[in-house]
């Protein structure tokens, strides 16, 4: 729960057409200062100099963590501690970020950001001495090979300590006479999480005078277990002919936690302290899920100054303060506590103690005050035409954490629009006062009961434990070294591509002054990113189609007026033209389960929806969002090439079917325990989808009629092997077919399009298809082939707005083959025959083009698809509808 967020009130330093003034680059908003503010200030809401639209994708990949356990040495037969094979997939994150900055009037600027992250993988939930035997080896079904570690928080119920409370074990297994071996080696216990998605939208409105600007903004971040709302105001003041700029910002964040506690780990983790505080609810409607609630508030303020030092150097400095109150702990992290019951020491080793290991949900203070101070120096290097950036930042809080950050960037332009930036960063922090890998408490862990036999109160005396405790590695003492490189290529016409790579290593031994956490907690990661930036102001200066629009010459060209949901509807006009577009699609299913065209009862699904097995679950809702970039280029008049990267995310809720058999009577007990997880948490996936590559050929283009053919290829860049988390000692297996991100096969995508236009009327028709070119993907199946036919008509309401109506027919086969690995089949969505069908829809759309001004030629379209009829294969959830929205600009 290391999160708080808000949008920064970084204010752009230039004003009006300021991006053309030379001094403004140097006085570019104090974005850098804002970026390093206490959590309240979002780094993503940086101020842009000019009207622009940016898209960025990034991938974060953590390395595998080492874990160890007390085991019996296979050679000597003695007790020992050794590394355990870690089969958990490490954390992986796919992120998408879109940013737009537009001038509304000469003095009013509007900025908007959208960010989403989908992550999944294994992470530490607790720490304990390895000799205690957590992380016991997981043996394969045949009992012969070790396939990994089980995520138990404790191995043996009893643990042994010497007189100084060091963890010990008998030299020879089960032989108290064999002597004691002390071993302080610690190990994390890891647990996996199924993929989860966070989405954030935020905005900022700025009003600018000549030397002063004021801004206000806000936003919201939403995920399954956490929601954050934030707002901020800020001001900027330019002094000394813009040699000095002052910034002052204030922000507020309010965040709610509502975390479903994993019922697999609940038997091991004591959550009673939160229960007694009224922070835990049991929801009987969702399989008795235990939900931990918390609220937190953050107030932040920041003051920054930037100063031109001389004609080759500038500097900035800032100070900020954040006060946080409320629930700041992580609802999924626990601290291992050894309870030593003085009255029960019969098995204690000579001179030592026996204890009982229990994990308590971590407890952090409900107040935190953070101070942060930083500076940046930028020096121009004449002989290299390069710039050297130095940053230093100091942070301190009343949790006892002091941190130092040093960074140096070398920004080296290479000519022809290329810039290379190598960088290095070093970070070091002290541990929080209440950080502890594990605890020992000299008391019994015993549940108390009242006269009627009801459990009351805590099983331990909290007075004999610290008030706060956490073993979260983020609060430990450590250092981190990272380095990376960014490469930027600026093209003509205002387009830029950026890409970057960074490697980061976290090590206890890197801490300044030593004394950091042990090497068991070390980890590393890399992150790579790619971004496309479109400078709208440069486009409008550059001529081309936008200049034509300026002259009022062209508003909707042939085919360009097709409804938003029609892909490949138009070609570019002439050789050398470019187009950049963004396409968003949303689809939702909920309501009835259908068989063919008719709603069916739960009983019918139980009996027939899952082949020869009974069904236990049905999908309650299924939502898909797709974000696509639409990049077009015309090498000749008769050919347009198109590249379409996609980012997809999906979520699905599930419910129990009435009349389903008790899972425990039909399934293996541990497997049956997966069903409550599905009901309690739903499923989420997200990341890169398949990559589309298309060539469009002009067949006929005379007067009012236009015909073109498209041949496309879809590369299987989307994942088709996403798995659910292992729990109850059973693998989660593949998530169902519909939740995977791509097809996994190379697909051929042909289409033929006819469009026409006469006066205020426009119309068109298109036939398109998807043919899977492989019989199965790497996971063993292939999605069904697809055929679609559509026809539409449009009418110009004004010279810049068109309304359209469209009809669509779609036919898709069911899935061929099936997953070639484990899939826990609980509902219709887990069976290949319950995919595909025939669909009839009608679409209602609006298309607008900005007729004049700086943004002339920008085109916006939306279309809603309303299902008319579904005729599904097998048993499927009814569709609610789909939305398409597009933005594009040609140049």
């Amino acid at each position, binding site marked *: 729960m290391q999160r708080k967020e808000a949008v920064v009130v970084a204010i752009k330093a230039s004003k009006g057409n300021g991006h053309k003034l030379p001094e403004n680059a140097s006085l570019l908003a*104090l974005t850098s200062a804002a970026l390093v503010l206490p959590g309240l200030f979002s780094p993503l809401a940086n101020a842009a100099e000019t009207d622009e639209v940016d898209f960025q994708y990034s991938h974060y990949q953590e390395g595998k963590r080492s874990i160890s356990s007390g085991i019996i040495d296979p050679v000597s037969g003695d007790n020992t501690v050794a590394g355990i094979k870690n089969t958990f997939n490490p954390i992986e*994150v796919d992120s998408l970020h879109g940013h737009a900055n537009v001038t509304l009037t000469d003095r009013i600027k509007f900025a908007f950001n959208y960010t989403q992250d989908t992550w999944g993988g294994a992470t530490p939930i607790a720490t304990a001495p390895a000799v205690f035997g957590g992380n016991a080896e997981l043996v394969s079904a045949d009992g012969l090979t070790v396939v990994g570690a089980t995520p138990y928080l404790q191995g043996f119920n009893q643990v042994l300590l010497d007189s100084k409370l060091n963890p010990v074990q008998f030299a020879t297994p089960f032989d108290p006479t064999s002597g004691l071996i002390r071993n302080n080696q610690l190990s994390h216990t890891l647990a996996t999480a199924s993929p989860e998605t966070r989405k954030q939208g935020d905005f900022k409105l700025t009003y600018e005078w000549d030397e002063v600007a004021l801004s206000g903004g806000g936003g919201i971040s939403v995920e399954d277990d*956490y929601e954050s709302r934030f707002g901020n105001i800020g001001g900027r003041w330019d002094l000394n002919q813009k040699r000095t700029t002052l910034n002052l910002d204030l922000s507020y964040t309010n965040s709610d936690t509502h975390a479903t506690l994993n019922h697999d780990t609940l038997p091991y983790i004591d959550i009673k302290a939160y229960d007694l505080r009224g922070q835990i609810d049991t929801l009987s409607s969702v399989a008795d899920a235990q939900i931990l609630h918390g609220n937190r508030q953050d107030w932040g303020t920041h003051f920054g100054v930037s100063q031109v030092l001389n004609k080759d150097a500038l500097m900035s400095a800032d100070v900020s303060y954040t006060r946080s109150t409320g629930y700041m702990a992580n609802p999924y992290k626990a601290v291992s506590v050894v309870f030593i019951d003085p009255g029960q020491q019969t098995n204690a080793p000579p001179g030592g103690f026996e204890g009982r290991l229990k994990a308590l949900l971590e407890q952090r203070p409900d107040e935190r005050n953070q101070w942060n101070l930083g500076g940046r120096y930028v020096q121009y290097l004449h002989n290299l035409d390069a*710039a050297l950036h130095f940053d230093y930042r100091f942070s*301190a*809080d009343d949790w006892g954490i002091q941190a130092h950050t040093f960074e140096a960037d070398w920004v080296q332009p290479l000519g022809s629009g290329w810039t290379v*930036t190598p960088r290095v960063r070093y970070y070091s922090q002290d541990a929080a006062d209440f950080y502890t890998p594990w605890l020992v408490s000299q008391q019994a862990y015993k549940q108390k009961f009242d006269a009627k036999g009801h459990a009351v109160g805590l099983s331990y005396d909290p007075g004999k434990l610290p008030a706060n405790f956490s073993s979260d590695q983020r609060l430990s003492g450590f250092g981190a070294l990272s380095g990376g490189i960014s490469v930027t290529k600026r093209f003509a016409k205002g387009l830029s591509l950026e890409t970057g790579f960074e490697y980061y290593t976290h090590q206890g031994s890197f801490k300044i002054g030593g004394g950091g956490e042990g090497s068991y907690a070390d980890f590393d990661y890399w*992150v790579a990113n790619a971004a496309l930036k479109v400078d709208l102001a440069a486009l409008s200066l550059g001529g081309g189609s936008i200049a034509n629009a300026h002259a009022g010459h062209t508003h909707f060209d042939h085919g360009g007026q097709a409804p938003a949901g029609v892909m490949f509807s138009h070609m570019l006009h002439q050789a050398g033209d470019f187009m950049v577009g963004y396409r968003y699609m949303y689809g939702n299913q909920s309501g009835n389960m259908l068989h063919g065209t008719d709603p069916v009862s739960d009983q019918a699904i139980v009996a027939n929806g899952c082949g020869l097995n009974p069904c236990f679950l049905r999908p309650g809702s299924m939502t898909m969002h797709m974000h696509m970039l639409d990049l077009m280029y015309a090498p000749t008049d008769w050919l347009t090439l198109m590249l379409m990267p996609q980012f997809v995310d999906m979520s699905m809720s599930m419910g129990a079917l009435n009349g389903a058999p008790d899972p425990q009577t039909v399934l293996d007990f541990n497997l049956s325990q997966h069903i409550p997880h599905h009901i309690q948490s739903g499923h989420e996936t997200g990341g890169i989808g398949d990559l589309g590559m298309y060539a469009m050929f002009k067949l006929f283009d005379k007067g009012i009629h236009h015909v073109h053919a498209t041949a496309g290829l879809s590369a299987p860049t989307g994942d088709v092997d996403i798995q659910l988390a292992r729990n109850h000692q059973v693998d989660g297996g593949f998530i169902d077919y519909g939740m995977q991100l791509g097809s996994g096969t190379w697909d051929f995508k042909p289409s033929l399009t006819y469009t026409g236009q006469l006066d205020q009327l426009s119309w068109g028709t298109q036939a398109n298809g998807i043919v899977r070119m492989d019989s199965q993907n790497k996971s063993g199946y292939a999605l069904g082939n697809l055929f679609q036919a559509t026809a539409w008509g449009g009418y110009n309401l004004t010279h810049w707005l068109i309304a359209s109506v469209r009809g669509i027919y779609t036919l898709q086969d069911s899935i061929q083959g099936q997953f070639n690995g484990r899939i826990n089949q609980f509902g219709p969505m887990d069976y290949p025959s319950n995919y595909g069908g025939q669909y009839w829809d009608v679409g209602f759309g609006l298309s607008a083009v900005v007729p004049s001004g700086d943004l002339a030629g920008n085109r916006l379209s939306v279309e809603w698809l309303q299902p008319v009829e579904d005729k599904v294969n097998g048993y499927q959830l009814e569709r609610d509808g789909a939305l398409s929205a597009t933005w594009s600009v040609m140049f």
Partner: protein
Amino acid sequence: MELIKQAAIRLLLAMCLFVAGCTVVQPWERGNLAKSQMALEPNPLQTGLRAHINGSREAAAVGNAAQGGGCGCY
């Protein structure tokens, strides 16, 4: 209090550096300062991303700790 004192001293130091190092730079002398490599933040998108990730990995008041923080297991 000790923390606040430390912070104040560091801020004063930074301010002194500013004042001492400043010379008058006329608008027509700002050609180098206007170059994109001299921007205080030359790669805002990437810097934002890195701050976002570091913020969820480190306890310092640095950047935004938003990423995956809802679970915190990330």
